[in-house]
């Protein structure tokens, strides 16, 4: 299930708004829905609104933001073009005493009542076992484990309503089973030692059994460490603690983290960056989403730039054939996207929203003006994020000074007066300013 087009006729700041979310001409996936989309734009341009409309239009799922609006106003105003198993559908909201979702293919149409009491799922939704996942900007960092059956029953996993840490329940049973088996083998070793302490071969055999078991048995915590979290935690000089001393499921708690000297870092002392990484990557790894939509609002929160640079690609590796939607204020996050994947939202003179196009003429990969993946960070800030100044006002002032001395020097050069004391003074000033401004062109 992927979205190839969003149309909003008239809703809040959106009027006659339409965005094409397919690969452009010349691309190997020309015409197919984009695998990832990045909404950027000034605050108030509707990035989060667009994200939160998606679960509402698909499943009638009401997020915190959608809850504050009159959902009736969405009827006849929102259309999605979607693709499910390569079959194109049109999905729109209509009003007939209640809000309906209308699905249309070329041959048939279905209406689904959006109501908490009357939720009818048609065949293609039932088939879609994987759930739409929403990571809001204000992720719940509470890492107390609680059993939350709603998480797995709902069509949408919305981490603005549910604790992210509750996904840990997905592997708690596996961890307990693993720990119990390990404990059993260790007890066998103890018995062997007690009963045949003088027979070295018997002890060796028992130990080898433990070693073989460890090599062949799936260790869920080791798996999370190796395949999900350790490469991210390495940025903080941390790793997942895999050697646990636990006897019951309650002892397990949430994932544990240690430093490189094997000192466990209590959950309460994790940095917000550490929490952000664990609580965003772990759900994707454990839920193993497939052919669904994943929404991330401000994925950059609390992450240092070097980690922001890698996070989008990393999330993509944790999902199978999913469509990601991001909303961000970070130029570094934006640098992970091709230009056709970026939807820059802007206000027009009347305060309505339009998408700034990055191509000229036909929508072809060769006609794009710039590519964030190839640009310098400052260039992305200036051209894509419209931060058009070089730097602070003081830097601008100093650059003006430098430009003035450069011109004065050139004029003296034209006059053949470089041997004058004034020229030497100018050179000293140019050198000082160039050093201060890191400008040695």
């Amino acid at each position, binding site marked *: 299930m992927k979205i190839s087009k969003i149309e909003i006729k008239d809703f809040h700041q959106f009027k006659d708004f339409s965005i094409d979310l397919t690969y452009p001409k010349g691309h190997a996936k020309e015409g197919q829905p984009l695998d990832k989309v990045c909404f950027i734009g000034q605050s108030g341009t509707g990035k989060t609104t667009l994200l939160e409309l998606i679960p509402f239009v698909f499943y009638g799922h009401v997020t915190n933001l959608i809850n504050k609006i009159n959902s009736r106003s969405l009827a006849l105003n929102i259309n999605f073009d979607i693709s499910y198993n390569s079959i194109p559908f049109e999905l729109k909201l209509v009003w007939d005493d209640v809000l309906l979702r209308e699905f249309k293919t070329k041959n048939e149409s279905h209406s689904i009542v959006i109501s908490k009491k009357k939720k009818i799922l048609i065949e293609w939704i039932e088939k879609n076992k994987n759930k739409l996942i929403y990571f809001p900007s204000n992720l719940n960092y509470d890492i107390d484990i609680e059993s939350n059956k709603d998480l797995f029953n709902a069509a949408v996993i919305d981490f603005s309503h549910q604790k992210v840490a509750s996904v840990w329940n997905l592997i708690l049973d596996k961890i307990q089973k693993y720990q119990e088996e390990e404990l059993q083998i260790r007890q066998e070793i103890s018995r062997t030692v007690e009963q045949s302490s003088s027979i070295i071969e018997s002890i060796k055999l028992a130990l080898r059994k433990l070693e073989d078991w460890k090599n062949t048995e799936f260790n869920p915590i080791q798996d999370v460490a190796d395949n999900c979290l350790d490469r991210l935690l390495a940025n903080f000089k941390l790793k997942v603690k895999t050697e646990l001393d636990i006897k019951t499921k309650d002892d397990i708690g949430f994932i544990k983290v240690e430093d490189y000297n094997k000192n466990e870092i209590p959950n309460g002392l994790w940095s917000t960056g550490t929490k952000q990484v664990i609580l965003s990557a772990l759900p994707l790894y454990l839920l193993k989403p497939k052919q669904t939509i994943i929404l991330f609002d401000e994925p950059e929160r609390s992450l240092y730039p070097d980690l922001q640079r890698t996070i989008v690609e990393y999330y993509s590796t944790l999902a199978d054939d999913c469509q990601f939607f991001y909303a961000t204020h970070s130029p570094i996050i934006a640098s992970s996207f091709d230009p056709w994947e970026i939807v820059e939202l802007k206000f027009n003179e009347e305060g309505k929203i339009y998408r700034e196009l990055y191509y000229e003429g036909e929508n072809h990969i060769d006609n794009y003006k710039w590519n964030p993946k190839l640009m310098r960070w400052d*260039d992305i800030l*200036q*051209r894509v994020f*419209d*931060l*058009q*100044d*070089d730097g602070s006002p003081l830097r*601008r002032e100093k*650059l*003006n000074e*430098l*430009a*003035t001395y*450069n*011109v*004065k020097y050139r*004029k003296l050069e034209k006059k053949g007066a470089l041997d004058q004391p004034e020229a030497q003074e100018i050179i000293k000033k140019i050198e000082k300013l160039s050093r201060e401004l890191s*400008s040695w*062109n």
Partner: protein
Amino acid sequence: MRKIDKNYDVLLSTKYKTWVDNLESNSTKHPLSRTYYDDVAMELYKCQQGVCAYTERYICPAELYESARWVDGKYLNDESAEFQRVDHAGEMDHFDPNLKKDKYWLWRNLFMIDATINSRKSNNNVLTYLKPDLDEYSPEKYFDYDEVTHKFIPNTELSDETRAEIQNMIDSVLFLNHGVVKNDRKDFINSVKFKQKYGMTPVIDRFFTAVRWCIVLE
């Protein structure tokens, strides 16, 4: 930026001209109706060769202001053409914002400028002596260009007081050195130099002043 010839006598938009002359001769307040917006905008682009009157960024394709677009003294949009009347990135600037109220469509007060610059410039007044269509105006009088930082600066020969007021224009009203404008200009100048170096013929369709001051064109 560069001097702009806005010869009122040769306008192709004769219907606009008759209309505005009539308003002026009767001392009538100009209506805000946009009947002649395209006429004026495209005439201005013709005078400005499709670039912003201040930054000289390229904001309008030449096809839009070809003479053939005017029929019987009125600009007509060609719906079959590749470029439509709205396919430009400029907005109309009223050089003296005080004239907007009564003389909104006064030809001599109008220029087309980059829309992003216009939104920043707002209703700030430009120094009267920097009006690009004045007989006595020339950019050399008031500006210098530093090829190293690619910044315009006030002419270093002017008094400190004049330089300060021109610097304010450059930074806060005309935005001649604003990040993207400056980078585009630097890139364009470097691309012209590159083409010259490798025997290609560069097309100079923007940043005319800076190119003229930095490069000896063959």
